[in-house]
Protein backbone atom coordinates (compact mmCIF):
# COMPACT_ATOMS: atom_id res chain seq x y z
CA UNK A 1 0.00 0.00 0.00
CA UNK A 2 1.27 3.45 -0.92
CA UNK A 3 -0.26 6.39 0.86
CA UNK A 4 0.28 9.79 -0.68
CA UNK A 5 0.45 12.60 1.82
CA UNK A 6 1.27 15.94 0.30
CA UNK A 7 0.49 18.94 2.43
CA UNK A 8 0.46 22.21 0.52
CA UNK A 9 1.24 25.06 2.89
CA UNK A 10 -1.47 27.49 1.81
CA UNK A 11 -4.65 25.72 0.64
CA UNK A 12 -4.93 22.20 2.03
CA UNK A 13 -7.14 21.18 -0.88
CA UNK A 14 -5.59 19.33 -3.78
CA UNK A 15 -6.32 20.75 -7.22
CA UNK A 16 -6.77 18.93 -10.54
CA UNK A 17 -3.13 19.71 -11.39
CA UNK A 18 -1.84 18.19 -8.12
CA UNK A 19 -3.64 14.86 -8.45
CA UNK A 20 -1.70 12.20 -10.36
CA UNK A 21 -3.04 9.15 -12.20
CA UNK A 22 -1.94 6.08 -10.24
CA UNK A 23 -2.16 7.65 -6.78
CA UNK A 24 -3.52 5.22 -4.20
CA UNK A 25 -5.10 5.71 -0.81
CA UNK A 26 -6.47 3.50 1.92
CA UNK A 27 -8.92 4.75 4.53
CA UNK A 28 -9.17 3.86 8.20
CA UNK A 29 -11.74 1.19 9.03
CA UNK A 30 -15.27 1.78 10.27
CA UNK A 31 -17.41 -0.77 12.05
CA UNK A 32 -20.98 -0.81 10.72
CA UNK A 33 -23.41 -1.12 13.61
CA UNK A 34 -27.08 -1.92 14.04
CA UNK A 35 -27.53 1.76 14.91
CA UNK A 36 -26.14 2.81 11.52
CA UNK A 37 -28.70 0.61 9.77
CA UNK A 38 -31.64 1.79 11.92
CA UNK A 39 -30.75 5.47 11.40
CA UNK A 40 -30.31 4.94 7.67
CA UNK A 41 -33.70 3.19 7.42
CA UNK A 42 -35.27 6.16 9.22
CA UNK A 43 -33.47 8.74 7.12
CA UNK A 44 -34.08 7.11 3.73
CA UNK A 45 -37.45 5.48 4.42
CA UNK A 46 -36.08 2.19 3.07
CA UNK A 47 -37.50 -0.34 5.56
CA UNK A 48 -36.87 -3.39 3.36
CA UNK A 49 -36.99 -6.51 5.56
CA UNK A 50 -33.42 -7.31 4.47
CA UNK A 51 -32.35 -4.47 6.78
CA UNK A 52 -35.06 -4.36 9.44
CA UNK A 53 -36.53 -7.80 10.27
CA UNK A 54 -34.07 -9.83 12.35
CA UNK A 55 -36.41 -12.82 12.67
CA UNK A 56 -37.20 -13.10 8.96
CA UNK A 57 -33.53 -12.76 8.06
CA UNK A 58 -32.51 -15.68 10.29
CA UNK A 59 -33.97 -18.01 7.66
CA UNK A 60 -32.58 -16.04 4.68
CA UNK A 61 -29.50 -16.67 2.58
CA UNK A 62 -27.59 -14.16 4.74
CA UNK A 63 -28.70 -15.53 8.13
CA UNK A 64 -29.11 -12.04 9.62
CA UNK A 65 -29.92 -8.43 8.73
CA UNK A 66 -27.58 -6.77 6.24
CA UNK A 67 -26.75 -3.09 5.69
CA UNK A 68 -28.43 -1.20 2.86
CA UNK A 69 -26.15 -1.20 -0.19
CA UNK A 70 -26.47 2.58 -0.41
CA UNK A 71 -25.47 2.89 3.26
CA UNK A 72 -22.22 1.12 2.39
CA UNK A 73 -21.76 3.48 -0.56
CA UNK A 74 -22.40 6.54 1.63
CA UNK A 75 -20.06 5.32 4.37
CA UNK A 76 -17.26 4.75 1.87
CA UNK A 77 -17.79 8.29 0.56
CA UNK A 78 -17.15 9.50 4.12
CA UNK A 79 -14.19 7.15 4.58
CA UNK A 80 -12.65 8.45 1.35
CA UNK A 81 -12.50 11.95 2.86
CA UNK A 82 -10.45 10.46 5.71
CA UNK A 83 -8.11 8.61 3.33
CA UNK A 84 -6.53 11.60 1.61
CA UNK A 85 -6.19 15.37 1.64
CA UNK A 86 -9.45 16.86 0.36
CA UNK A 87 -9.71 17.47 -3.36
CA UNK A 88 -10.85 20.90 -4.55
CA UNK A 89 -14.08 19.22 -5.64
CA UNK A 90 -16.65 21.37 -7.44
CA UNK A 91 -19.19 18.61 -8.02
CA UNK A 92 -19.80 14.92 -8.04
CA UNK A 93 -20.42 13.98 -11.68
CA UNK A 94 -21.39 10.33 -11.53
CA UNK A 95 -20.53 6.79 -10.60
CA UNK A 96 -20.64 3.16 -11.73
CA UNK A 97 -21.03 0.75 -8.84
CA UNK A 98 -21.35 -2.96 -8.07
CA UNK A 99 -22.53 -4.64 -4.90
CA UNK A 100 -20.46 -7.80 -4.51
CA UNK A 101 -21.32 -9.09 -1.05
CA UNK A 102 -23.27 -8.28 2.12
CA UNK A 103 -22.15 -5.90 4.88
CA UNK A 104 -23.34 -7.41 8.15
CA UNK A 105 -23.76 -5.82 11.59
CA UNK A 106 -20.33 -5.66 13.23
CA UNK A 107 -18.37 -5.80 9.97
CA UNK A 108 -15.52 -3.30 9.69
CA UNK A 109 -15.17 -1.79 6.25
CA UNK A 110 -12.54 0.39 4.65
CA UNK A 111 -12.02 1.82 1.18
CA UNK A 112 -9.01 1.42 -1.07
CA UNK A 113 -8.92 3.97 -3.88
CA UNK A 114 -6.81 4.66 -6.95
CA UNK A 115 -6.88 7.55 -9.41
CA UNK A 116 -7.35 5.94 -12.82
CA UNK A 117 -7.98 8.88 -15.16
CA UNK A 118 -7.89 12.65 -15.48
CA UNK A 119 -9.75 14.47 -18.21
CA UNK A 120 -9.69 18.18 -18.95
CA UNK A 121 -13.02 19.76 -19.81
CA UNK A 122 -14.03 22.45 -22.28
CA UNK A 123 -14.02 24.88 -19.37
CA UNK A 124 -10.37 25.57 -18.64
CA UNK A 125 -10.75 25.98 -14.88
CA UNK A 126 -11.73 22.39 -14.03
CA UNK A 127 -11.28 18.73 -14.92
CA UNK A 128 -12.79 15.32 -14.21
CA UNK A 129 -10.88 12.93 -11.95
CA UNK A 130 -11.91 9.25 -12.04
CA UNK A 131 -11.25 7.27 -8.87
CA UNK A 132 -11.58 3.50 -8.73
CA UNK A 133 -12.76 2.37 -5.30
CA UNK A 134 -12.88 -0.99 -3.57
CA UNK A 135 -14.73 -1.48 -0.29
CA UNK A 136 -13.23 -4.30 1.78
CA UNK A 137 -14.37 -5.95 4.98
CA UNK A 138 -12.24 -7.21 7.89
CA UNK A 139 -11.56 -10.45 5.99
CA UNK A 140 -10.33 -8.47 2.96
CA UNK A 141 -13.37 -9.59 0.97
CA UNK A 142 -14.58 -7.10 -1.64
CA UNK A 143 -18.12 -6.08 -0.67
CA UNK A 144 -18.54 -3.16 -3.09
CA UNK A 145 -16.52 -1.71 -5.95
CA UNK A 146 -16.82 0.89 -8.62
CA UNK A 147 -15.65 4.15 -10.12
CA UNK A 148 -16.58 7.72 -9.29
CA UNK A 149 -16.12 10.83 -11.41
CA UNK A 150 -15.42 14.09 -9.61
CA UNK A 151 -15.25 17.59 -11.09
CA UNK A 152 -12.15 19.15 -9.55
CA UNK A 153 -11.00 22.76 -9.77
CA UNK A 154 -7.67 23.56 -11.45
CA UNK A 155 -5.09 25.39 -9.40
CA UNK A 156 -5.87 29.10 -9.85
CA UNK A 157 -3.29 30.56 -12.22
CA UNK A 158 -2.09 27.12 -13.37
Amino acid sequence: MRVILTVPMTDARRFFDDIQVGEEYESPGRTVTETDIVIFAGLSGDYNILHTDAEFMKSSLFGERIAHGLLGLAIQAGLFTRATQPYATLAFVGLRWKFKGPIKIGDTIRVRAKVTAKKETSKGDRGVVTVERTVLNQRDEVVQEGETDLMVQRRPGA
Partner: protein
Amino acid sequence: MAQAAKFYFEDVVLHGILETPGVTITEAHVALYAGLTRDEPLEPGAVPEILPLCLTTGLGWRVPQPPLAVLAFMGFEWHALLPVRVGDTIFSRSRTATKRSMREGGVVIEEREVINQRGEIVHKGKFTFLVAKRPT
Protein backbone atom coordinates in the same frame (compact mmCIF):
# COMPACT_ATOMS: atom_id res chain seq x y z
CA MET B 1 -50.65 -16.26 8.39
CA ALA B 2 -50.97 -13.96 5.38
CA GLN B 3 -47.71 -12.63 4.00
CA ALA B 4 -47.39 -9.01 2.92
CA ALA B 5 -47.95 -8.66 -0.82
CA LYS B 6 -44.89 -8.52 -3.02
CA PHE B 7 -44.25 -7.55 -6.60
CA TYR B 8 -42.49 -10.48 -8.29
CA PHE B 9 -40.51 -10.72 -11.53
CA GLU B 10 -43.66 -11.89 -13.36
CA ASP B 11 -45.50 -8.74 -12.20
CA VAL B 12 -42.89 -6.31 -13.55
CA VAL B 13 -44.21 -4.58 -16.69
CA LEU B 14 -41.59 -3.80 -19.31
CA HIS B 15 -41.52 -0.01 -19.95
CA GLY B 16 -43.90 0.45 -17.01
CA ILE B 17 -43.51 3.86 -15.38
CA LEU B 18 -43.75 4.57 -11.66
CA GLU B 19 -43.76 8.02 -10.03
CA THR B 20 -43.19 8.52 -6.33
CA PRO B 21 -44.53 11.22 -4.03
CA GLY B 22 -42.11 14.04 -3.27
CA VAL B 23 -39.91 14.88 -0.32
CA THR B 24 -38.52 18.27 0.66
CA ILE B 25 -34.83 18.00 1.53
CA THR B 26 -34.14 19.87 4.76
CA GLU B 27 -31.09 20.84 6.80
CA ALA B 28 -32.09 17.98 9.11
CA HIS B 29 -31.71 15.41 6.31
CA VAL B 30 -28.26 16.74 5.42
CA ALA B 31 -27.11 16.95 9.06
CA LEU B 32 -28.33 13.45 9.85
CA TYR B 33 -26.78 12.05 6.67
CA ALA B 34 -23.44 13.83 7.21
CA GLY B 35 -23.31 12.75 10.85
CA LEU B 36 -24.05 9.16 9.93
CA THR B 37 -21.63 8.88 7.03
CA ARG B 38 -19.20 11.83 7.28
CA ASP B 39 -20.02 12.52 3.62
CA GLU B 40 -20.32 16.30 3.99
CA PRO B 41 -21.91 18.90 1.69
CA LEU B 42 -19.39 20.83 -0.43
CA GLU B 43 -20.75 24.18 0.80
CA PRO B 44 -23.53 25.41 3.09
CA GLY B 45 -26.94 24.73 1.56
CA ALA B 46 -25.62 22.06 -0.80
CA VAL B 47 -26.89 18.48 -0.63
CA PRO B 48 -24.37 15.61 -0.89
CA GLU B 49 -25.16 13.85 -4.18
CA ILE B 50 -25.68 10.42 -2.65
CA LEU B 51 -28.44 11.68 -0.32
CA PRO B 52 -31.18 12.26 -2.97
CA LEU B 53 -30.40 8.78 -4.29
CA CYS B 54 -30.97 7.32 -0.80
CA LEU B 55 -34.20 9.30 -0.37
CA THR B 56 -35.66 8.16 -3.70
CA THR B 57 -35.16 4.55 -2.64
CA GLY B 58 -37.38 5.26 0.38
CA LEU B 59 -39.89 7.16 -1.79
CA GLY B 60 -40.21 4.00 -3.87
CA TRP B 61 -41.88 2.40 -0.83
CA ARG B 62 -44.66 4.99 -0.85
CA VAL B 63 -46.16 4.21 -4.26
CA PRO B 64 -49.46 2.31 -4.51
CA GLN B 65 -47.74 -0.92 -5.51
CA PRO B 66 -46.28 -3.68 -3.33
CA PRO B 67 -42.49 -3.61 -2.93
CA LEU B 68 -40.41 -5.38 -5.55
CA ALA B 69 -39.22 -8.81 -4.31
CA VAL B 70 -35.55 -7.89 -4.61
CA LEU B 71 -33.11 -10.77 -4.00
CA ALA B 72 -30.06 -8.61 -4.60
CA PHE B 73 -29.22 -5.05 -5.62
CA MET B 74 -26.49 -5.87 -8.12
CA GLY B 75 -25.27 -2.46 -9.16
CA PHE B 76 -26.05 0.88 -10.72
CA GLU B 77 -24.72 3.90 -12.56
CA TRP B 78 -25.60 7.43 -11.58
CA HIS B 79 -25.20 10.88 -13.10
CA ALA B 80 -25.55 14.17 -11.24
CA LEU B 81 -26.75 16.71 -13.82
CA LEU B 82 -27.76 19.70 -11.68
CA PRO B 83 -27.09 20.69 -8.07
CA VAL B 84 -29.67 19.86 -5.41
CA ARG B 85 -30.05 22.46 -2.63
CA VAL B 86 -31.62 22.37 0.81
CA GLY B 87 -35.29 23.31 0.37
CA ASP B 88 -35.66 21.54 -2.97
CA THR B 89 -38.52 19.07 -3.28
CA ILE B 90 -37.66 15.97 -5.27
CA PHE B 91 -39.50 12.93 -6.52
CA SER B 92 -38.44 10.09 -8.77
CA ARG B 93 -39.77 8.60 -11.97
CA SER B 94 -38.73 5.06 -12.83
CA ARG B 95 -39.15 3.01 -15.97
CA THR B 96 -38.40 -0.68 -16.46
CA ALA B 97 -35.91 -0.75 -19.32
CA THR B 98 -34.98 -4.43 -19.41
CA LYS B 99 -36.44 -7.64 -18.01
CA ARG B 100 -34.48 -10.88 -18.39
CA SER B 101 -35.55 -14.22 -16.94
CA MET B 102 -32.86 -16.33 -15.25
CA ARG B 103 -32.97 -19.77 -13.68
CA GLU B 104 -33.19 -18.25 -10.20
CA GLY B 105 -35.32 -15.13 -10.47
CA GLY B 106 -34.82 -12.50 -13.14
CA VAL B 107 -32.77 -9.40 -13.82
CA VAL B 108 -34.63 -6.10 -13.98
CA ILE B 109 -32.93 -2.91 -15.14
CA GLU B 110 -34.71 0.23 -13.99
CA GLU B 111 -34.02 3.73 -15.31
CA ARG B 112 -34.59 6.36 -12.65
CA GLU B 113 -34.79 10.14 -12.85
CA VAL B 114 -34.84 12.48 -9.88
CA ILE B 115 -36.90 15.59 -10.64
CA ASN B 116 -37.10 18.82 -8.64
CA GLN B 117 -39.97 21.26 -8.01
CA ARG B 118 -39.20 23.10 -11.27
CA GLY B 119 -39.53 19.88 -13.30
CA GLU B 120 -35.78 19.73 -13.93
CA ILE B 121 -34.09 16.31 -14.07
CA VAL B 122 -31.35 16.75 -11.47
CA HIS B 123 -30.01 13.19 -11.28
CA LYS B 124 -30.54 10.10 -13.39
CA GLY B 125 -29.26 6.56 -13.53
CA LYS B 126 -29.81 2.87 -14.14
CA PHE B 127 -30.27 0.23 -11.46
CA THR B 128 -29.82 -3.53 -11.86
CA PHE B 129 -31.80 -5.79 -9.52
CA LEU B 130 -32.12 -9.54 -9.19
CA VAL B 131 -35.83 -10.11 -8.52
CA ALA B 132 -37.52 -13.25 -7.19
CA LYS B 133 -40.02 -15.19 -9.28
CA ARG B 134 -43.44 -15.90 -7.83
CA PRO B 135 -43.24 -18.96 -5.56
CA THR B 136 -45.09 -21.89 -7.13
